[in-house]
């Protein structure tokens, strides 16, 4: 036998490095045979990870889609929304055509300004007439957003000139829906209202802002935009401005720049502004504006899934520790055969990472499966929902968190020293406390604490949703069917014509069998389209005081309605009367105001019979009624000031038809209503399309969609967390009982009865639960306070929610401890002693 000497062996730098890959391969193949021989543990670990990684990844994909990737336009952080302000009146407004030219010419910080405004047209010439939401934009709009058409082309600069041929570009969705994706429509013409427009291109799908449009039109195609008044009147500020920041400039630079330009223009053209206006302008990050409303909810969601993930990691680490304790002898044998600590750690890490990658892979599959569901939910509150996808960023995220959990669970058991001699002798049957017992207990306590935090957060979120849904919104959404009509304003181009058709529609609706009540209105509560229509921007003159131009109220709206509107909504008239059929275009001008406005104007007397004027006394409206406050913008938003006017005296082009059917409670009349309205409108004007059907309930539900989304997901995560925690508790307790079987045998042999043994085990588990819950309350307190600052109508501390979360976790823990405890107390002492 040829031998090297011991000393040379000790110091030789051997080939271990070269064998790293082979070692990993060997470890992997060993890991697989272990997984197969331990199917239950493997399954629990993989499932725990799959659930938590799946949930975390799915939510990350939502956050990624809505927040991080919110504008998939190139360098989206360079895109800004521009707006002008009158600082003295705290009023924002857009830009007029001439101002856009001035700002573009004078700005140092952005290249040129893109303009945007939104119109509704009726399209003819392609089957039935359809209502078309239209963005009217300058040719540089697409370039700013880095959009390249998938068919045809977009507008050129010369096509911005007034008098150029009317052109439209279709959005991808509209092209699919109305033209079935046919490419031969390029260069064909369709009619928009009364003018023929040539289709020159199809845009790719993109998240639209500020409105979701069907088509985009060049400036000269819009009759309003190309009118003499719009072109020359500096005060006609109806366009939104967008711009791309120049290289090397920041948002702050743009802000300074546009403020200066606005100030200077204000000095040059004082007649184009209100008296004593303090003119300024500012820029907002497009990205920020897109995500502002949903950001706190999405961060809350992400934070809670991370809690869930931590619970899972703690659980898996704990399971791995228990496994490791059972494998003490194996590791001691390996060590006696010459495996170094590093080599053993590598083995553990390989196994653990392998498991977590499995879990991650299945989790990713879960995320894929849940994606459609999440997108559906998200589409109720975000126009960017279509941007949610499992892209490479999301996959990297999944890989990262899987590897992270694998490393944690794989590395923790390597801490601490194996006593080789005793491990080889007793094969792992050492006392419980010496084997990472403290660490294991700490992890379990951590799981309890995090679960409690999560449970309480879910409870608070549900409570917030409940509070939101039980707010007195001033109307009842039940059983109200709605159809929207956008009148072709070229055909119905004056108030009389608009009211005429509106009235005819209403008369026909009221003739319908089974319709018990009906009304028309320009908008209705939670109507996302019309919510900001008819805002009163100037001061209103009141009959009992001098006019003061500065007495302008914030957020005041004129809402054209017909008689029966408040009845239908079950809104209470607090004073005076409702409108009647006599309040028509021949009758005296009347108005109903809401309670909030009545209190504002006449806090100490009745508003009834007071007169108000929007034109400084030329025409007066008599207040005939005061109605309760209706929350128009969703339950969470306080009611604004409302002035209701008879539609006959204040006609609208955007009309909502509202109706209730007899016995609505029993059956769903949406289909009947849809057909009825289609028939009526077709009969009255076969060229007038309908815009949208919905129920008032659906509109109200959508207004709390984000909150419901949060509550539903948090509930789901809490359930997953509880399942994981149950498996964690029973795992740790089962392991402890296993180790102490012999001790239990001895106790029973010397006279302990079943109850004492049961108590011994149970008290151990309950003690840990208790510590966990105390720690958890602290966590819940902080997270609760944070939630209270983000969510509607809750306090950070809620005794009932805290109490029930504590009780349910305690109950679950006792139940999970009871099974192993019962098993332990049922082992015959002789069998236990032989262990």
């Amino acid at each position: 036998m040829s031998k090297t000497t011991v000393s040379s062996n000790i110091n030789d730098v051997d080939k271990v490095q070269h064998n790293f890959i082979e070692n990993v391969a060997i470890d992997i193949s060993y890991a697989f045979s272990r997984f197969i021989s331990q199917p239950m543990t493997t399954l629990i670990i993989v499932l725990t990870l799959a659930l938590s990684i799946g949930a975390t990844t799915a939510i990350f994909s939502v956050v990624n889609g809505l927040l991080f990737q919110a504008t998939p336009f190139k360098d989206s952080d360079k895109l800004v929304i521009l707006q002008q302000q009158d600082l003295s009146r705290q009023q924002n407004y857009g830009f007029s055509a001439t101002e856009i030219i001035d700002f573009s010419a004078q700005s140092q910080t952005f290249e040129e300004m893109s303009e945007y405004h939104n119109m509704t047209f009726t399209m003819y010439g392609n089957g039935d007439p359809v209502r078309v939401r239209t963005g009217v934009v300058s040719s540089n709009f697409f370039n700013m957003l880095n959009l390249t058409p998938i068919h045809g082309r977009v507008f050129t600069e010369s096509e911005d000139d007034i008098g150029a041929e009317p052109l439209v570009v279709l959005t991808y969705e509209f092209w699919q829906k109305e033209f079935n994706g046919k490419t031969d429509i390029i260069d064909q013409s369709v009619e928009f209202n009364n003018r023929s427009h040539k289709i020159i291109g199809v845009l790719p799908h993109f998240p639209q802002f500020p409105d979701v449009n069907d088509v985009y039109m060049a400036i000269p195609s819009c009759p309003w935009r190309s009118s003499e008044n719009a072109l020359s009147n500096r005060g006609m500020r109806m366009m939104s401005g967008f711009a791309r920041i120049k290289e090397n400039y920041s948002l702050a630079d743009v802000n300074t720049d546009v403020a200066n330009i606005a100030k200077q223009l204000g000095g040059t053209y004082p007649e184009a502004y209100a008296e004593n206006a303090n003119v300024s302008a500012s820029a907002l990050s497009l990205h920020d504006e897109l995500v502002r409303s949903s950001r706190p909810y999405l961060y809350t969601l992400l934070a809670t899934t991370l809690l869930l993930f931590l619970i899972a990691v703690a659980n898996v680490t704990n399971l791995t520790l228990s496994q490791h304790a059972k494998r003490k002898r194996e590791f001691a044998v390996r060590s006696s055969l010459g495996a170094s600590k590093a080599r053993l750690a590598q083995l553990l890490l390989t196994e653990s990472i392998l498991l977590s990658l499995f879990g991650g892979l299945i989790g990713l599959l879960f995320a894929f499966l849940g994606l459609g569901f999440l997108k559906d939910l998200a589409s109720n509150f975000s126009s960017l929902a279509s941007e949610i996808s499992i892209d490479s960023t999301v996959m990297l995220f999944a890989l990262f968190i899987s590897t992270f959990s694998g490393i944690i669970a794989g590395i923790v058991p390597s801490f601490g020293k194996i006593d080789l001699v005793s491990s080889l002798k007793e094969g792992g049957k050492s006392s419980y406390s010496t084997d990472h017992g403290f660490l294991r207990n700490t992890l379990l306590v951590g799981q309890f604490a995090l679960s409690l935090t999560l449970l309480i957060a879910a409870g608070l979120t549900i409570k917030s949703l409940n509070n939101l849904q039980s707010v007195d919104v001033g109307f009842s959404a039940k059983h109200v069917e709605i159809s929207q009509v956008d009148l072709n304003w070229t055909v119905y181009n004056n108030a009389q014509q608009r009211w005429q058709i509106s009235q005819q529609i209403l008369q026909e609706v009221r003739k319908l069998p089974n319709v018990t009540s009906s009304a028309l209105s320009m908008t209705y509560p939670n109507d996302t389209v019309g919510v900001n229509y008819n805002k009163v921007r100037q001061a209103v003159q009141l009959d009992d005081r001098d006019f003061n131009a500065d007495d302008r109220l914030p957020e005041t709206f004129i809402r054209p309605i017909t008689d029966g509107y408040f009845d239908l909504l079950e809104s209470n008239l607090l004073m005076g009367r409702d409108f009647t059929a006599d309040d028509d275009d021949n009758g005296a001008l009347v108005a109903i105001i809401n309670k909030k406005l009545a209190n504002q104007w006449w806090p100490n007397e009745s508003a009834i019979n007071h007169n108000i004027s929007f034109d400084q006394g030329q025409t007066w409206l008599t207040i005939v009624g005061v109605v309760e406050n209706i929350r128009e913008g969703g339950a969470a938003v306080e009611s604004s000031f409302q002035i209701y006017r008879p539609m006959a005296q204040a006609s609208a082009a955007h009309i909502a038809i509202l109706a209730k059917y007899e016995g609505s409670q029993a059956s769903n009349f949406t289909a009947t209503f849809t057909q009825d309205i289609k028939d009526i409108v077709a009969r009255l004007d076969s060229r007038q399309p309908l815009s949208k059907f919905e129920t008032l309930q659906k509109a109200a539900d959508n207004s709390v969609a984000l909150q419901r989304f949060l509550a539903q997901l948090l509930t789901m995560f809490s359930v997953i967390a509880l399942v994981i925690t149950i498996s964690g508790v029973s795992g740790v307790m089962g392991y402890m009982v296993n180790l102490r079987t012999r001790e239990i045998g001895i106790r029973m042999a010397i006279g302990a009865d079943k109850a004492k043994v049961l108590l011994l085990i149970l008290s151990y588990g309950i003690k840990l639960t208790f510590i966990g819950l105390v720690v958890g309350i602290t966590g819940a307190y902080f997270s609760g306070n944070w939630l209270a600052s983000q969510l509607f109508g809750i306090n950070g501390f809620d005794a009932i929610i805290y109490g029930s979360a504590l009780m349910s976790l305690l109950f679950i823990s006792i139940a999970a401890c009871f099974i192993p405890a019962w098993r332990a107390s049922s082992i015959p002492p002789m069998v236990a002693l032989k262990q």
Partner: protein
Amino acid sequence: MSNSKTLININNLSKIYHTDGTQTHALKAISLTISQGDYVTIQGPSGGGKSTLLSIIGLLDKATSGEYKISDVSVAKLSQSQMAKVRNKEIGFIFQDFNLIGDMTVSQNVELPLIYRGVKKSARKAKVDEVLARVNMTERAHHLPNQLSGGQQQRVAVARALVGNPTLLLADEPTGNLDSVNGDSVMQLLSELNEQGVTICMVTHDSRYAHFSNRTINLFDGEIVSHSSGVTPDDAKSVQEHVKIVASQIAVEA
């Protein structure tokens, strides 16, 4: 053999266990040398310190005080990973309860020390086949330990101890869990190995097997109470003959 090289040199070595405030003097100032090619048997009553001594010799544990040199290298100076390396290359262990890894097949168990040494796959396979043949376990190469009898498991353990050509084979009551027929066959194996030059240090209760060795050390209460320089060659021969006959019977049965 008395003039061959010294492999193990132990001087004034003590081991004290501290448990719950009590001290156990498991080894008390022991001095001992083992030369290459020796076959040393350690005997003594239970609790005498035999396993403790063997673990220290095998670098599984460290002494509390005293000096221990293996091939002139002082063990006290070795790091954990250096000790692992010495265990891997110089020492083979055989335990009373075999200590095979349950999730691994016979050949995987035997291959393990070579993997830790970084031996190439092809070389590993040849070596594993060779030692399995030597302990008569070739046919069981792909079985799991729990599919084998105690005697077969111990032969696999011997193969695993041998596979790396160790200088020193340490066996702690290798026959303790075996019936006499299987025990004899394992002892026969060790005896052959010693004849081929492997140094063996074995703890045993069974005084019959002490006769295989050329030296016996008696440990009592942590102290060496007597050395004996073995048995007469004639005695050894007769026992060996007996063992050989039994071993061949097993081979026929297997």
